[in-house]
């Protein structure tokens, strides 16, 4: 039903990706794909390799082996810059903010707005930051404070704003709501639906089963560096997902949830 529309080229194809740290195989032969307007949930126990896989796609980490295709073409992503040029934006689990700089400086870091003389256009950056931050959190007022003095949720909002402000096509969200309160979490859920409607593909790393079932079209579960299951969300129950996460396999005698009902 909402299984990936065959015939359409995927936005992203990860093929046989591996990442080794010495003897540790953080990512072990993982293949995955993402279609326009699709939200794919990436699940797995702590240390399963989710962040490593996402960082490889966002250019923050080089894979030891494997291929990445974007919109059907081989992509060589050697730096965060390369990824951004392909329309890949990332909200990192670690948020990755420069603590001594204020919100607008962080939002535009690496992509500063400049006047025609090449000077920093701080005024315009402040205005733009105010706009985009207010859509995410109307209570966001202390824009000129260094971000070290902001709350965890406010910092997260800056990281989110940074990913959506620019022309994003592929969005990687590594636990984007970990520090957010309920209303902000709801706001992010709305945002995900809105971006999805615009045809943006989203990888959503999350431990929150409720969010995953609410927002995702598909899930992929990682266990000890391997992709142990990719399923349309209708096919699996929460128990199935838990079994994949913990055991690395579906329960015995598993029947797809949607077909089970039909039986």
């Amino acid at each position: 039903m909402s299984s990936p529309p065959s015939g359409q080229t995927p936005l992203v194809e990860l093929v046989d990706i591996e990442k080794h740290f010495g003897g540790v195989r953080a990512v072990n032969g993982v293949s995955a794909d993402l279609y326009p307007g699709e939200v794919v949930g990436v699940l797995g126990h702590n240390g399963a390799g989710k962040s490593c896989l996402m960082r490889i796609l966002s250019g923050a980490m080089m894979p030891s082996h494997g291929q990445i295709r974007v919109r059907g073409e081989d992509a060589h992503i050697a730096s965060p810059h390369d990824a951004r040029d392909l329309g890949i934006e990332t909200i990192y689990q670690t948020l990755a903010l420069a603590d001594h700089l204020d919100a607008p400086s962080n939002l535009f870091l690496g992509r500063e707005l400049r006047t025609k003389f090449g000077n920093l256009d701080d005024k315009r950056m402040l205005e733009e930051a105010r706009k985009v931050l207010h859509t995410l959190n109307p209570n966001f007022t202390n824009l000129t404070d260094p971000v070290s003095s902001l709350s965890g949720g406010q910092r997260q909002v800056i990281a989110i704003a940074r990913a959506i402000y620019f022309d994003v096509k592929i969005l990687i969200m590594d636990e984007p709501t970990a520090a957010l309160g309920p209303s902000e979490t709801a706001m992010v859920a709305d945002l995900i639906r809105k971006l999805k409607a615009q045809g943006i593909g989203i990888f959503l790393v999350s431990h929150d089963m409720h969010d995953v079932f609410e927002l995702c079209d598909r899930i992929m579960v990682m266990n000890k560096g391997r992709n142990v299951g990719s399923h349309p969300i209708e096919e699996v129950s929460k128990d199935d997902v838990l079994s994949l996460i913990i055991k690395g396999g579906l329960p015995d005698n598993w029947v797809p949830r949607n077909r089970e009902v039909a039986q």
Partner: protein
Amino acid sequence: MDLSLTSIRSKGKQLNMSAEMFHKLSAFLTLMILIIVFAFGNAAFLSVNNGLTVLLQTSVIGLLGIGMTLVIITGGIDLSVGSVLALSGTVTGMLVKSGMPVVPAMLIGVLVGAACGLFNGFVITKMKITPFVATLGMMLIARGVALQLTGAAPISRLGEAFGVLGNGALFRVVEQGANGFPRVVFPGIPYPAILLVIVALAGGYLLRRRRLGRHIYATGSNEEAARLAGVEVDRTKITAYALSGALAGLAGIVLMSRLVTAQPNEGVMYELDAIAAAVVGGASLMGGVGNISGTMLGAFIIGVLRNGLNMAGVSAFIQQIIIGFVVILAVYIDQLRNRK
């Protein structure tokens, strides 16, 4: 509700502002207290001539301090500036001695400094050697080259033109006295002081208004975050070290021009004065914090301290002890600031 929020915010902002202003103010007060104390100790301290001496001393510390500030904001340190100063000065002196006109010789001197800084930057970013060790190496290399080139002997009689930058002044007014001797009506503004003001303004502009400056802060604040945001962290650091080297070269030329002699032994331990100037001025050795106006205040404090102690007849040994304590105190204050 909304009103109370904004008022809290503006109050917080005032507090924030006053934290930075407080530091500047206390540095300024320290400077004033030093001046008053030294003036009471020795009336000649406040004379025009001594003022010019302080200005000249400070301009060398200040030039080094500006470069040091850029490097410290990236989270690094440059221990090689004293030696690079000597190398650039001696290279310039040798070129002038061999018949090259003064201006191109001085430009080459600055480029030699920049090349040393570039080398530092490459060792730090590409070979991943810590800034402390890399620039400590350069400290020995540059000093060694300067001594080797000259056989450790100073090069003197470099001609009047070589001395202009260090000894000349803008708007100097001299009139012929009745007794036939020239009388200085207005001592003018020494060229080194003008140079310092220009470099300080340029440095402030770079840090506040240019993208490179923003990236320097971001790199020192959180290198990984800067990298993930697409900042060319390596290039940013290399540029900071190259600028520090170039300014050390410039300081060397000013100093040697002042002496009208190229001295391969000049500038030993000047790096500590430069670090002290930056840290006293509010730069943090943890990176991400610092500014040029603070460093200028710091440079004046160190310059006045050294000059005042000289005037008071305090021995060079005791001076070292005092400056040593000042550096430790400044870094300690920096850490207290960071702890909260």
